[in-house]
């Protein structure tokens, strides 16, 4: 069995890759993809802890399932927003969305 720490480290790596995407990419859809990666990492974390620590109860799996569900909902809305933005601004590049500028 792979040690828990390996799995957690992998999850951390995934998380940070996603974080980079959120911070540094310009396309709205790609930013959303970064969020998905981060949430995937969360799921891996949850399942890992469930597997290694608390496997008798089903709570960990339930939590993981809910995270997946919520991710799905969030991606749905995010993509829809991106489409709406595209339709109204003509661009999907986040850099050009600066109407909140002071």
């Amino acid at each position, binding site marked *: 069995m792979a040690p828990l720490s390996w799995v957690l480290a992998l999850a951390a790596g995934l998380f940070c890759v996603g*974080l980079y995407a959120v911070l540094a990419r310009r396309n709205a859809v790609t930013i959303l993809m970064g969020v998905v990666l981060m949430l995937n990492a969360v*799921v891996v974390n949850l399942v890992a802890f469930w597997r290694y620590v608390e496997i008798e109860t089903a709570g960990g799996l339930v939590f993981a399932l809910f995270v997946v569900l919520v991710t799905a909902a969030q991606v749905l809305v995010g993509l829809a927003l991106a489409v709406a933005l595209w339709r109204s601004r003509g661009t999907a590049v986040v850099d050009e969305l600066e109407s909140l500028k002071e």
Partner: protein
Amino acid sequence: MRTAHASIMGLQQILFIVFGTIALGAAVAAVALRNAFHSALALAGSCLGVAGLLVSLGAPIVAGVQALVFIGGIAASIRFGPAPLREMTRSVHLGHNRSWWVGVVVAAALCGAIVWMVFSTDLDPAPDAAFIPSGSIEALGVALVSAEGFVLPLTIAVLLVGVALAGAARLVGRR
């Protein structure tokens, strides 16, 4: 090289390494590729890797849901979805920000911090459980729908997804 020592390391470890590599590698590809469309494909691949990881950890249900939702749903929507989505992902941009280095720094710092944390705590030794614990599916099902289980959060989550669906449809469907 690793396969030569397959008998020393367990099957689960091999699966972990393989799928973990896929997941991480595809993730890096997803965030590094310029073409947003290729990024989406790489994301699907990363999700596949994560699904495999979850299977190796003994949660095939979550893996299945994951596969359905992310690979099927997202990747498919980006590939076959409404025209704006496809246009958005196909237009070629300079994929990265002007201050992308900030992102690298921050991500690396955070990653380092967490990894260091993980490896310096004394985690319990891995329990010697069976490869895929049986009965977990049933327990999960019972937990999800029983009144003393998680039926209320399940209902709320489903409602949430439903509302998101409706809202997304409204946003996208308006012409």
